[in-house]
């Protein structure tokens, strides 16, 4: 197949489907408990230099507890898939944990504004960046999930986004049209937060999946945090609800309110006040350092962080906001 053009960006991960198959061949299939703790999962399954991908969507259903722990354990030189990475990127950028990034959407927190500290990281030139789009990264996970080295698509063509990507332009062998070939993305580790999981790692999710199904099938290792552990019988009662299958999962940890300060569909709304506090602390590096010391480095775990943020009373308020669908301004 003729390659007509290719992007200048570096491909951070290996798209070779055969090498991925060799890895997946060794992945255990036994129905065994994978229960562990956040600190153990991060210590044992994430290594300096790994390429990491995060589930959810920016501030929605993100595995905050795992992200904080990566910062707390001072992991270094991680690669990151910036697939609508808003608060998740903000946390890892704050910890100085990443040195390369596949960018679809970073730096901004959607309607809330931009993260000053994340921006500084790019503008200092310390981060190696390859550009993509949200669909491109979702489809790259899908190619990996399918077990093929690339997937064709029709976006990115004709733009600088393509030029700074690591995609290639090819000619369709059937129609002769120009297509973009998106290389499969097999992350070393995927971090996801779900509503419910059993001890083996079978997961149920309420609401949108974003790209988590493709992502967890693409990643070599998967760490799952869940709002609630459920018995295996509950999974077996409704197998159609299983969004993520146990044999893709390596670790399971129950972390109630684990997406805080993000939004968890049907459970709690995002804590806009706390997110604003993050964003404004970033305006000044010294203030920000103190902020991180207070909330991440100075806390032993996520429960302590939740306590600092208002504990159960605050969580109940966010739950009421979510369930009663009180408009955000009605707080």
């Amino acid at each position, binding site marked *: 197949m003729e390659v007509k053009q290719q992007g200048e960006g570096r491909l951070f991960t290996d798209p070779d489907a055969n090498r991925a198959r060799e890895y997946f061949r060794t992945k255990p299939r036994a129905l065994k408990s994978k229960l562990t703790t956040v600190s153990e999962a991060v210590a044992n399954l994430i290594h300096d230099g790994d390429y990491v991908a995060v589930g*959810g*969507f*920016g*501030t*929605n*259903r993100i595995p905050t507890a795992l992200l904080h722990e990566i910062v707390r354990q001072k992991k270094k030189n991680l690669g990151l898939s910036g697939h*609508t990475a808003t608060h998740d990127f903000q946390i890892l950028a704050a910890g100085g944990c990443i040195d390369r990034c596949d960018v*679809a*959407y*970073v*730096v*901004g927190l*959607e*309607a809330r504004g*931009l993260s000053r500290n994340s*921006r500084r990281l*790019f*503008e*200092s*030139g310390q981060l190696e*960046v390859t*550009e993509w*789009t*949200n*669909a*491109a990264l*979702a489809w790259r996970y*899908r190619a990996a999930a399918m077990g093929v080295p690339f997937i064709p*698509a*029709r*976006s*990115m*063509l*004709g*733009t*600088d*986004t393509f030029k*700074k990507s690591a995609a290639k*332009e090819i000619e369709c062998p059937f129609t002769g*049209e120009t*297509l*973009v070939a998106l290389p499969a993305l097999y992350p070393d580790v995927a971090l996801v937060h779900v509503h419910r999981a059993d001890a083996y790692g079978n997961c149920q999710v309420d*609401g*949108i*999946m*974003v790209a*988590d*199904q*493709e992502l967890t099938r693409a990643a070599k290792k998967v760490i799952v945090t869940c709002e609630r552990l459920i018995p295996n019988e509950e999974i077996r009662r409704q197998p159609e609800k299983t969004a993520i299958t146990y044999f893709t999962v390596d670790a399971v940890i129950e972390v109630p309110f684990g997406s805080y300060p993000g*939004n*968890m*569909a*049907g459970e709690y*709304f*995002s804590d*806009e006040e706390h997110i604003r506090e993050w964003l404004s602390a970033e305006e000044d590096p010294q203030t920000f350092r103190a902020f991180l010391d207070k909330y991440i480095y100075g806390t032993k775990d996520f429960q302590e962080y939740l306590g600092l943020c208002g504990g159960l009373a605050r969580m109940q308020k966010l739950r009421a906001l979510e369930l009663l*669908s009180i*408009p*955000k*301004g009605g707080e």
Partner: protein
Amino acid sequence: MVNPGAEAGKAAEAAKAAVRYNSMELMICLAARCLEDGSTVVVGTGAPCAAAMLAQKTCSPNLMIMFEAGGAGPLLPSMPISVGDSRTFYHGLFAGSMGEIMDACQRGMVDCTFLGGAQIDPYGNINSTVIGPHAKPKVRFPGSGGANDLASLCWRTMMITPQDAKRFVPKCDFVTSPGYLTGPGAREAAGLPPGTGPYKVITQLAVIGFDEATKRMKVEGLHPGVTREDVIKNTGFELLWAEEVSTSEPPREEELRILREQVDPYRYIIGRG
């Protein structure tokens, strides 16, 4: 003797004059009227979402609103803060995945999308990535997100954006999302799906379309009180002008009432106007 007809006319005139609105409200109303009933639209947060909500409550009750993170057909209880928050599938028809929404765009089933950016050029190309060199930019923006995909794959791309000479530039520092690229035939030559591209740009000054022959921005309508000079002064390149430039129809009372009371009661978006 008083002529009752004339009295009624005067009252209507007075009522009309009493309708005050800001430029954001006007932009949202104009955008909402572009959304056809029974069509599909992918929106982000902010003004586009407000326009889609308003359209659904006025001219287009059967508008299918979609969000790129996977939500579709919600009965939006309030303005989402994130394209992936739970409001985006509240009482919705579908809560799927980003891949599924983007597949629908690529399959040709999404009529319209709304985009914004830091820079826009005469062909409707948009920059939301960097100002300055890519490796060490002067200013870093969030990047494409889904914007490039939506601009590539949806049939029509619309923009609601403030207009000034710094934003409306002759050439973008970085083309994040494709408009008509370098002109007629360029999208097709690049491999983008035929028949797609920018449709309207709605600013605080004007409604701008794209010239069929040159694919460049062409002013179609000026908002009440806005002159050609105002528009020229706020554009960093030469604009084309329609033969007959219309005057934008201001927000109707009913539109404003719904916009203020139901769509954006806390004035998150319209408060910026």
